[in-house]
């Protein structure tokens, strides 16, 4: 699967193209959104309980805060958590999975023991324990703790991939050309895994967003600033649905679902590009 063939299938895959458009749009909204609204997400904008209208596109909540501004800032922090948390989890998973797969022996045994242990423990419970004791929680810290607890799944997948590549003959061929093993890793094995790593990153990105939303909802979100999860938490705390304020609850949840669903669909598209068997389905 060389570059030319990859581009050929990449551009023709409906799933990938639609996913890219949606994600691109959302990214633009989160970057330029703040310029579209004149309000600050947390300050009092105007009369509360307003359903979506011309003045407040997404309505206002019990405190009179403009929900469109909150959504835009919230989307930005969610995407940031996805990027950093997902990225960190992918990198850690990559390193550990790679070393375990390539080195093998007892080294592999220990790393995999650690991975299996962390995999059994529900990540949200672990996050709660860690987050509960953090005096100050920002988006960055949240991404770090999510990244630190989400990597086991990647490590296992990357290890399996490395094991299958390691036994391929072009690795032996490189070894008998007196190539140092670090060069073998980065020049022979790594390029073949790029496609796989990218797909793993996409899943981690989505996973990190869901984890962050869960944490925010349970009350351990960023202490300052806003995120889609916090909006939902406040909505539940202040009985939004009982008061019939559906707009306070629907938009943040729908946005998260849209982002994560688009990521999953893009992943399926990439899967079809990389292994033809699913393509003919």
């Amino acid at each position, binding site marked *: 699967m060389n570059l030319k063939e990859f581009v050929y299938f990449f551009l023709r895959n409906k799933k990938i193209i639609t996913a890219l458009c949606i994600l691109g749009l959302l990214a633009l909204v989160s970057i330029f959104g703040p310029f579209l609204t004149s309000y600050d997400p947390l300050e009092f904008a105007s009369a509360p309980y307003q359903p979506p209208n011309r003045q407040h596109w997404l309505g206002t909540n019990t405190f009179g805060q403009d929900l469109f501004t909150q959504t835009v800032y919230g989307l930005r922090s969610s995407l940031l958590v996805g990027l950093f948390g997902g990225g960190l989890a992918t990198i850690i998973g990559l390193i550990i999975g790679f070393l375990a797969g390539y080195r093998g022996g007892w080294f592999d045994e220990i790393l995999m023991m650690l991975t299996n242990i962390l995999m*059994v423990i529900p990540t*949200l*419970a672990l996050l709660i324990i860690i987050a*509960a004791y953090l005096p100050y929680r920002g988006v960055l810290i949240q991404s770090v703790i999510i990244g630190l607890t989400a990597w086991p799944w990647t490590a296992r997948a990357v290890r399996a991939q490395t094991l299958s590549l390691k036994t391929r003959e072009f690795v032996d061929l490189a070894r008998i050309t007196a190539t140092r093993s670090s060069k073998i890793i980065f020049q022979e094995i790594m390029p073949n895994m790029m496609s796989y790593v990218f797909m793993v990153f996409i899943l981690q990105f989505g996973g990190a967003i869901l984890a962050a939303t869960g944490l925010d909802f349970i*009350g351990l979100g960023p202490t300052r600033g806003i995120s889609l999860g916090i909006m939902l938490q406040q909505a539940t705390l202040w009985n939004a649905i009982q008061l*019939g304020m559906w707009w306070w609850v629907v938009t943040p949840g729908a946005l*998260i*679902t849209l982002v*994560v669903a688009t990521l*999953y669909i893009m992943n399926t598209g990439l899967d079809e590009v990389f292994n033809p068997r699913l393509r003919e389905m």
Partner: protein
Amino acid sequence: MNFSRPKGRDCSEVIFLRKYLLKKILIYVLTFFFAATINWAIPRFMPGNPIHFLIARFATLPESAKVLQSYFTQAFGLDRPLMEQYVNFWRAFFKGDLGISIYLYPQPVLKVILRSLPYTVLLLLPAIIVSFVIGNRFGAFVARKKYLDNIALPIFYTLTAAPYFWFGILLAWLFGVVLKVFPIAGAYSFAMTPSFSWRFVSNYLYHWILPFSSLVLVMLGGWAIGMRNMIIYELEANYSRYMEALGSSQSLIRRYAYRNAILPQVTGLAIQLGTAVAGTLTTEIVFSYPGIGYILMQGILNQDYFLIQGCFLFIIVGVLIANFIVDILYLIIDPRIRKSYTGEI
């Protein structure tokens, strides 16, 4: 190199099974030990002292702050050396003493958790089983035709992508607020006291429907996608092709493929437990359903560290037991591990 196995069923197979299960138990005990240690270590090694953070919340006079300070330090046993604290932790744990809850002072944490545990189990277990069965049936059905696949796949992805509690909120709004069909708060109406009378049980179920169905809906998507991919893979396996070449009907081939595709889904069950538990905790909060999730949130809001730690330990124990049951289940239904001694443990 062919490693053909000694013929016939003999005691070496039984020895292998015992060894296999013992190894699994060892791993789970080790995991629990590891998780409990994290649970013990985090408050003690976190930057900033949780006690100050706790007292700052009470914003009382300086003298009472000092009294509270000594009470908590003594309660946490922070003044004693680390090793001793660790040993005390385990001694207290085995005596069932998880400390006193601050949120529901003076009830011991264990009692608070034991009271809410059945509610979570009654919600989580049926949801997992029902979503597993329906999800896999749907996934297998959808893999039949291309157009079915094109319609169903985006739906499944949306289901599995949605945050668990969001679906809960949507259902609560639709059925609770708009249609007013189901109650959306608590596990039973306030006037009732928990008993096994039919009146209470029906009322309980009446409250149970919405949280249960929101959990099932979200979990359903995950199983369906997993089964759809697995069954496509199995339908193209060599044994399916061979049976088709020998004139077998599609239904027989699909039955065999489904049987093999369900096996990795069972292992998937063990991995999905973590997310399922997390989903239940958050959904309980939406419906203020008095399970572990709800009291965990109260614990967080009230900085009740003992309660948070207690809930964490119970969640871990629950997940480990469930994982062990899934391992045994897998051993029973998949002969490949039982029969291949060099099977990868």
